[in-house]
């Protein structure tokens, strides 16, 4: 029986935990299988949940978020027969852990290009939840994509706050959106969990475009959401559960090539994406896959060539 450990944001974070939840649900619905799950409430529970599930015989144990790396490195060696899956972790030295990283900067690069192409004002916005490296990583890819289309583009980047409330403050998200609109932004990319709900809402209300994150959020405001940066955590979780105990371990980085990240195109945003836009983005996508184009990751040296944080 697999087990799934959500990060502190909880499984309904409108973000990547929720994507994991969706993947697990899909697996359960398709196979009729059951799985255990826990929404962490505190840091101390990370290790606790790992051990408890491992001891109870859950296999594989799937964890969400980079913060699980540290406890995993302590726990995984104690349960060599258990397979662990660590989403957003790629740097552990543990034989029984399947480490899955996403090249969010690549996906963000593509939506950044779309944003720049859709923008009439030459200004695009980025709203992050909290100023942490992961969010800078998103913003950095986005900025590079936007600059690739229009080197003179202005990118307004804001963070919502410094307390956990920053991920659940749609009102502040709205105000930031309005602030960015007044600074000229007409496409805004939100990577801010529940706060993003406010960003997308206000963008729709004010008649500008927004970009969703993690899962496909195009349907939230049809015709108003330019696209969504997809991070296929759901697929990763689904695959892991499907593979079960026979899971392949090692480090997997899911980028454009693996369809681990991408941009969403469906009936809700089809009218917004012109053929040229699609062509340009798909070309860039291919180039990145082929290695002709390199999108710099923020993690490489803690800085971004296209945007200062």
């Amino acid at each position, binding site marked *: 029986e697999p087990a799934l450990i959500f990060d502190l944001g909880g499984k309904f974070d409108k973000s990547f935990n929720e994507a994991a939840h969706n993947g697990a649900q899909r697996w359960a619905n398709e196979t009729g299988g059951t799985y255990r799950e826990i929404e962490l409430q*505190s840091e*101390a529970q990370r290790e606790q*949940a790992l051990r408890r599930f491992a001891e109870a015989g859950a296999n594989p144990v799937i964890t969400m978020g*980079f913060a699980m790396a*540290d406890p995993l490195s302590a726990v995984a060696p104690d349960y060599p027969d258990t397979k662990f899956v660590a989403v957003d972790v790629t740097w552990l030295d543990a034989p029984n852990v399947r480490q899955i990283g996403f090249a969010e900067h690549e996906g963000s690069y593509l939506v950044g290009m779309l944003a720049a192409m859709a923008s009439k004002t030459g200004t695009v916005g980025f709203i992050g939840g909290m*100023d*942490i490296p992961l969010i800078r990583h998103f913003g950095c890819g986005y900025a590079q994509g936007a600059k690739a289309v229009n080197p003179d583009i202005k990118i307004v980047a804001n963070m919502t706050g*410094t307390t956990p409330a920053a991920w659940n403050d749609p009102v502040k998200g709205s105000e930031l959106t309005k602030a960015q609109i007044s600074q000229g932004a007409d496409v805004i990319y939100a990577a801010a969990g529940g706060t993003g709900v406010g960003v997308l809402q206000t963008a729709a209300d004010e008649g500008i475009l927004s970009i969703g994150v993690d899962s496909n959020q195009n349907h939230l405001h049809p015709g108003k959401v330019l696209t969504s940066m997809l991070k296929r955590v759901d697929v990763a979780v689904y695959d892991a559960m499907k593979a079960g105990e026979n899971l392949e371990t090692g480090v997997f980085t899911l980028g454009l090539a693996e369809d681990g990240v991408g941009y969403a195109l469906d009936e809700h945003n089809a009218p917004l994406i012109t053929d040229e836009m699609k062509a340009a983005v798909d070309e860039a996508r291919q180039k990145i896959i082929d290695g002709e184009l390199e999108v710099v990751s923020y993690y490489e040296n803690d800085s971004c060539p296209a945007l200062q944080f």
Partner: protein
Amino acid sequence: MDKMPKWADVVLIPLISLILAAILSALVILGIGEDPVAAVKLMVSGALGSTYGWGYTLYYATNFVFTGLAVAVAFHARLFNIGGEGQAMLGGLGVAMVCLYVPWPHWSIALLAAMAAAMVFGAAWAAIPAYLQAKRGSHIVITTIMFNFIAAAFLNYMLVNVMRPEGSMDPATERFPEAVHLPTLHELLAPIGISFSKAAPANVSFLVAILACFVVWALIWRTRLGYEIRAYGHSETGALYAGISPVRITIVTMLISGALAGLMAINNVMGEAERLVLNSTEGAGFIGIAVALMGRSHPFGVFLAALLFGFLYQGGAELALWTSIPRELIVVIQALVILFTGALDNMVRMPLEKLFLSLRKGSA
């Protein structure tokens, strides 16, 4: 000349209140379609049924003892310190600096240094609100709320821009060296032949917390300073008459309170995480308010209330692990426990008092 025997006040009323809270919680659990009996069993066995469960329960309780004592000490001087959260965050910063930047030969010396740093940092963070309250009359409730936000921003800056190891995704410091690893209860109890769960994070800080309870108790009820703090808390004009300086008491009390809140960091930062992560306090500063209020600001009461909350946290974790009960249910159960044991206790006390009075009259 009490209306009720003391045991009834101390044991019976909390017990009945807890039962009422449990009944209501059971109704909520039923409401979302789960089995309350199984849930209670799971919570009790998960939190108290094994040394593993105890290890977690005591770990959480340790956090709450520190923040609860912090609030309680300030309460004795009628200062409402809502800033435990921020003070504990800063305490964590102090601990991290001590553990990371100084090579320590042995954990025991490191612990002493870390305690000192945690207390100094926590006290420093309480100092400005204290000074402003004492000298400028700026309401300490506002300033401490504001300082919580400022602390969060400061810590965020430190962890993202200053202390984060290069290239790490995690807004956290690197792991502390092995030398400052605090012995867990497992390691402490093994030599005397007691086998305690290896996995649980409860560590030597728990003993420090117990010690802190005694120290605070002695401070408040056995020292001149404690006497002055209580006197000032009860009557400001009285303090003036007795030559107790309001400015001094306000500042000293808040420094002690901040130091206690900061001290929490030896448990969660040094003892458990062994690194400083963002939001490491996780609201323990606010739980401390409930703990202090429920413990009637007495260290012993604080200890019991902290245990209760430790139980709820760990029991809740077990619920979350083995059932599909959403974690918000645990928040609701906590709310009901606080409500019944803390705010609605007179609902139980009033009829009980009548009962005892009539019993006494009947026998007299």
